[in-house]
C-alpha cells in the first residue's frame, strides 16, 4: 500500500515539473486534470480505517468530479473560443522556470524535514509534495502571460493546499471540506466567465493587454 502512495506523490511532483515545461496549453490542462484525479484518489489510500468511510468517499468523489472533470472541460472550452494553441514566451522564459521549479522541489524536500509534524506517521512524502506543488503554482501565476495559464497556476496552488489538507482529515468537518471544494469550483467558474469576457473584449487572453489602469 505505502509503495502505491509514494508512486502517487512522485507522479504529482513529476506533473508539476511537466506543467512548468509545457508550452502547449492542451497538454498543460490535461496534466493538471490528471493531477486532480490522482489527488482525489489519495484520501481513499491514506484514510485510516477507523474513520467512517462515507466522509472519505464523498470527499474523494467530489474532488474527482471537480478537479478532474469539470474544470478541464471549462478550460478546454475557453481555449477553443480563444482559438489559441500555444503559450507565448513567459516573462522569465521556459528554461529558467524549469530550473526554479526544480530548485523549489529540492527546497521543499529539504525544508519539510525541519517542520515538526505532529503525527509523523502519515507519509514522508506528503508535506514536501504539498510544498512543491504550492511553489509551482505560485511560479506559474507569477511568470505566465496567458490568462489560462494563470488559472492553471492557481489550480495547482489549490491542489498543493488540498494535499496539505489531507493531514487534517479527521477534524475538518465534512461540511468545511465540501465548502473548500465548492469555493474552488466557484473560483474557477468565475475565472472562466471573466476569461470569456476578456477574450471577447481584447480578442486574446494575453494579460499584457491588461495594463490600462495607471496612477
Amino acid at each position, binding site marked *: 500500500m505505502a509503495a502505491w502512495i509514494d508512486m502517487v506523490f512522485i507522479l504529482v511532483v513529476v506533473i508539476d515539473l511537466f506543467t512548468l515545461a509545457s508550452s502547449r496549453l492542451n497538454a498543460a490542462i490535461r496534466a493538471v486534470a490528471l493531477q486532480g484525479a490522482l489527488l482525489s484518489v489519495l484520501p481513499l489510500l491514506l484514510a485510516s480505517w477507523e474513520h467512517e468511510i462515507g466522509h472519505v468517499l464523498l470527499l474523494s468523489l467530489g474532488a474527482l468530479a471537480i478537479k478532474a472533470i469539470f474544470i478541464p472541460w471549462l478550460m478546454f472550452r475557453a481555449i477553443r473560443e480563444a482559438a489559441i494553441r500555444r503559450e507565448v514566451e513567459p516573462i522569465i522564459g521556459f528554461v529558467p522556470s524549469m530550473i526554479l521549479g526544480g530548485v523549489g522541489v529540492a527546497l521543499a524536500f529539504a525544508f519539510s524535514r525541519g*517542520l*515538526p*509534524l*505532529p*503525527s509523523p506517521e502519515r507519509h514522508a512524502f506528503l508535506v514536501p509534495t504539498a510544498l512543491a506543488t*504550492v511553489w509551482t*503554482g*505560485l511560479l506559474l*501565476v507569477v511568470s505566465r502571460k496567458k*490568462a489560462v495559464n*494563470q488559472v492553471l497556476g*492557481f489550480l495547482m*496552488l*489549490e491542489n498543493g*493546499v488540498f494535499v*496539505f*489538507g489531507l*493531514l*487534517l482529515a*479527521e*477534524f*475538518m*468537518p465534512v*461540511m*468545511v471540506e465540501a*465548502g*473548500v471544494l*465548492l*469555493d474552488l469550483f*466557484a*473560483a474557477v467558474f*468565475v*475565472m472562466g*466567465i*471573466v476569461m470569456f*469576457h*476578456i477574450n471577447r*473584449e*481584447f480578442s486574446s487572453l494575453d*494579460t499584457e493587454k*491588461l*495594463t*490600462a*489602469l495607471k*496612477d
Partner: protein
Amino acid sequence: MIPIVILIPLVLGGMAFAWPENRNRPVFLLVGAAAHAAGMAGLWLREEPPLLDGFLFLDAAGKVTLTATSALFLACAVYAQGYLRRRDDRDNRVFVGGLLVLLSALTMVGVAQHLGLLWVAIELTTLATAPLIYFNRNARSLEAAWKYLLVCSLGIALALLGTFFLALAGAAPGGPRSLLVGDLVRAGPALSKPWVRAAFVFLLVGYGTKMGLAPLHSWKPDAYGEAPGLLGALLSGGVTSFAFLALARVYQVCRAAGEDAFARDALVGLGLLSMALAAVFMVGQRDFKRMLAYSSVEHMGILAVGLGLGGSAVPGAFFHSLNNGLSKGVLFLAAGNIHRSFGSKVTDDVRGAARRLPVSGPLFLAGFLAVTGTPPFSPFFSEFVILNGALGTGRYWVGGLFLLFMAAIFIGMGTTILKVVQGDDAGTPSRPGFGDSWLTAAPPLVLMLVVLALGLWLPRSLADLFQSAAHLVAGS
C-alpha cells in the same frame, strides 16, 4: 435568528437572479437589506446562544462589524433604487443577485467561529464581488475585475495554508484538534509555537490582502477606481472591515498562544507602511475614485495600528472600523453621484461639484473633513483614542509618524477634493438628468448625519460593545 439573517439574503439573491423584469429587480435589494437590518436589530435586543455546536455565534467583535455593514448596506440599497433606475441600459441581474449573495457571505463571516468556515465565507465574498466590479462592462473594469480576482484568490489561498498550519498547531497529542476559535483560545499555550507563528504570518498576508494593507494593496486602486460608487462603498466600508474582523480573530488565537509580541509589531509596522504608501500615492492624484481607494488603504492601516498597539487603542480600532464603514459610504456614494453627473472622474474636467450637485458636493467635502479626523465628526474621536494609545504608552515614534502621515494625507487628499468641489462648473462636461435626486442623495446624507451624531453623542451601549470586543480580542 442568525440562520434567518444569513439565509434571507441568499434566497432573495436567488430570486433576483431568476427575476426576468429588469426595472423592479432592485426592490429585492431593498427587501434583503431591510430584512437583514431587522435581523440585526433582533440580535441586538436578544442575545443568541451559539448554533451548530459552536460554529455560528455572534460575539462582540462580530456584532460591531455586522452592525456597521448592515447600516451601510441599507443605505446602499436605497441608493441602488435610484442608481439602477438611471442605469437601466444595463442588465442588473448579476449586480443585484451578487450584492445579496455578498451580504449573506459577509454575515456568515461575521458569525463564523470556525476558522475553516470563516475562510470559506471570505472566499465567497471575493467571488461574489468580482463580477460586480465588471458592472460597467468596459475594458478598464474588466482588467480591474481580473486583477481583483486573481490577487485576492492568491492571498486567500495563502490564508487557507495558514489555517491548515493553525490546525496543525492544535493537532499535537493533547491539543484541541479543532479550528473553533473558542477551543483554540482555551488550549492557548498548548499549541505548538512554530506552527502558530508560521500560521500567523500566512494568515496576516492572506487576510491582509483582503483588507488591502500596504504591500498587498495593489488590487484596491484598480478595483475601487473602476467599480460603481455603490460597490466601492460596500467594499471599502464592509468587506475590508470583515477582513479586519478575521485578522482580529487570528490575533485573538495568537495572543492566547502567547505569540502576540511579534504579531503586534507586525500589525503596527504594516499599518504605518500602509499610511505612508497612501500618503505617497495620494499626492497629486487626478482620479478621485482611486484617491478614495488610497484613503481606504490608509484607514486599514489605522485599524492595523490600533489593533497592534493593544491596550486602550483596541476599542478605538473597533470604533474606527464602524466610523470607517459609514464615512467611506458617504464618500463613495457622493463620488458616484459626481462621477455620473460629470461623466468623468478625472479632476481635469470635474469642477464646481458643489454648485451642480447641491447635496453631493458639500457631502463630498464634509466626508473628506470627517475622514481626515476633523472634530465634531466621529472618526476624529476614534483616531484620537488610537493616537492616545500610541503616545500615552510612550511609543512616541509611532505617534509621531501617525500624525505626520495624517497631515500629508490631509494635504494630498485636500487638493484633489477641493479641486472637484469648488469653483463653478462652466466648461465641464454636462450630462442633464444626472443631478441629485432624492434616492441618490438622501442615503449619503443620512450616513453623514449618523457620523455627526456619533461624534456628538456616542450611545453608552455602543461604547460598551467596543470595550467588550477589545477585551475579547486583546484582553485589554
